[in-house]
């Protein structure tokens, strides 16, 4: 009995200080075990070859965590992510968000089907229209802070799908500032903005 108690105590202590056997930072699957399964859709190391599933590598931790949590709770409409995100606990979502936030944004070559390509005329028009957007999505959409996702070089079709989500669903979750801009701009203007950001490197 004495041994048993001791073992239980040691185990409990292990959990508290953040890991059994000192290896993974939590009980259950490691962050990479959890995150590696995302690659099948979001590309190796979170860099998607397109044309429409977004690259998630290097996105801000807060952004990734918020998105996954909203998908998990059913607060964010989706085609498939709601069904997937419900498979993870808060702790696991936190680990996945940290994992991808720690990877490097990149452009994955090698895809044999190219996505819709950026139209330079639309991108030019979009650049002029994107002034308000760039107050948060700074430096041509490259800069990412706490919860602002990168737009520069993101897949065009993904940005277009998101615009459609924002414009067709009043309740689609988004920051107030974002919503006020979305409401002001026409679908056509937003499409031009999508071309502009997708074309940034």
């Amino acid at each position: 009995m004495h041994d048993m108690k001791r073992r239980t105590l040691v185990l409990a202590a292990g959990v508290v200080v953040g890991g059994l056997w000192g290896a993974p930072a939590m009980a259950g699957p490691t962050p990479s075990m959890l995150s590696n399964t995302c690659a099948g859709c979001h590309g190796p190391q979170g860099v998607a070859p397109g044309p429409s599933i977004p690259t998630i590598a290097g996105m801000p931790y807060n952004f990734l965590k918020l998105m996954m949590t909203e998908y998990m709770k059913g607060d964010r409409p989706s085609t498939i992510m709601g069904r997937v995100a419900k498979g993870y606990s808060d702790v696991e979502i936190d680990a996945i968000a940290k994992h991808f936030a720690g990877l490097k944004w990149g452009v994955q070559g090698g895809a044999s089907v190219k996505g819709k390509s950026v139209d330079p005329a639309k991108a030019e028009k979009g650049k002029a229209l994107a002034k308000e957007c760039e107050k948060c999505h700074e430096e041509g959409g490259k800069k990412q802070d706490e919860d602002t996702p990168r737009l520069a070089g993101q897949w065009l079709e993904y940005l277009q799908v998101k615009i459609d989500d924002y414009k067709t669903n009043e309740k689609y979750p988004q920051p107030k500032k974002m919503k006020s801009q979305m409401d002001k701009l026409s679908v056509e203007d937003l499409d031009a903005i999508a071309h502009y950001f997708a074309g940034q490197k």
Partner: protein
Amino acid sequence: MYNLTRRHFVKLTGGLAAAGLVSPMFPTLGRASQGKKHVVVVGGGYGGVIAAKYIRMADPSVTVTLIEKEKLYYSCPLSNPVIAGFRDMKVQRWGYENLAKHGINVQHDEVVEIDPVKRSVSTAKSASFSYDKLVVAPGVDFKWDAIEGYTEKASEKIPHGWKAGPQTLLLHEQLSAMKDGDPYIIVAPPMPFRCPPGPYERASLVAWYLKQHKPRSKVIILDAKDKFAKQPLFVGAWKELGYNIEWVPVNEGGKVTRVNADSMSVHTEMQEYKSSAINVIPPQKAGKIAHAAGLVDKTGWCPVNQKTFESTVHKDIYVIGDACIATAEIPKSGFAANSEAKIAAAAIVAAFKGEPEPDPSYVNTCYSLLSPDYGISVAAVWAFKDNAVAKVSGGVSPEKATPAFRKQEASYAESWYQSIMVEMFS
């Protein structure tokens, strides 16, 4: 040397020294005795390639040899659009040349024998490789004898198209050439088989083609089952899209008992069906080498430890992908093979380091196309709990959805394909 078997003796006298027995053919591919671990992966598909890559990523000190017969890989997922004529076969084709960049030694050869005691494999080109751990990912093989008359030879006239390649193109040719008004016949197999929604995706896309080009024709599915994957979604879409598809389940006489390739006919117990375009997807079992190595049980598939994918028959051999028996819920899909490969790779690397078996996370996502702009999906996440694989979440696309939703999923199907293939072959 006293326990040398006759088989090994034949090999030795034939001048083919089994590596690890006498002098290794590949001196760099040493075993534990030399401190360097060697993993051999049999089969370069959705499972095998990922296992090889992830072992190298997790521990670059491990030597990995991938043995795959073919020099080119043709993906089954998204090959149905090739049959329906809206996708080029070239988009399905990939090569193994980039794997060397990851330190994977690729051998284009066929493993014909596995010796689980000596821990070595021998190949058709008479090479021999010793291993510390072996990953077996051979995919499926067909039960040629299960439907009378459906032999490998017969499949040259009545293709299965269940391994992407020349048969995929043959199915496209037959569809293009068939007479308007003739039926297109698909014979669907019993469970378990590779890609459970596959026959119904194929039926949908053939119907999409027929609607435009041969409006008097219809698809007849003769099924050995009375239900199928994503059924309400498929059936709903067939109605919505105006497809002419007749599904004959087993309880209404759908089971095909005989095939005649000379007269281009298939027979159920009740009826004979004739057409110039017939697709028989035969009943399946684990790939040939799994049988030769005795890795299968009486079901014809390979039982494995659900946490590590190590064979429960032979130690140090891991069976992943279509050939293994994951829990009944995890389908024989490309994505499942990819997920299983990552779990097995982590288990192998942990075992080399003397660490406990890692807790796995299993995921499947699978898209089916019903037209170029109409996609549906199934997804699931499983965890290992109380010594078993337990589903945590998942489900199929909603039965009611807007055309924009279906179009998004069709686009994600393409993106899924690009991501999973690039993960394998870049």
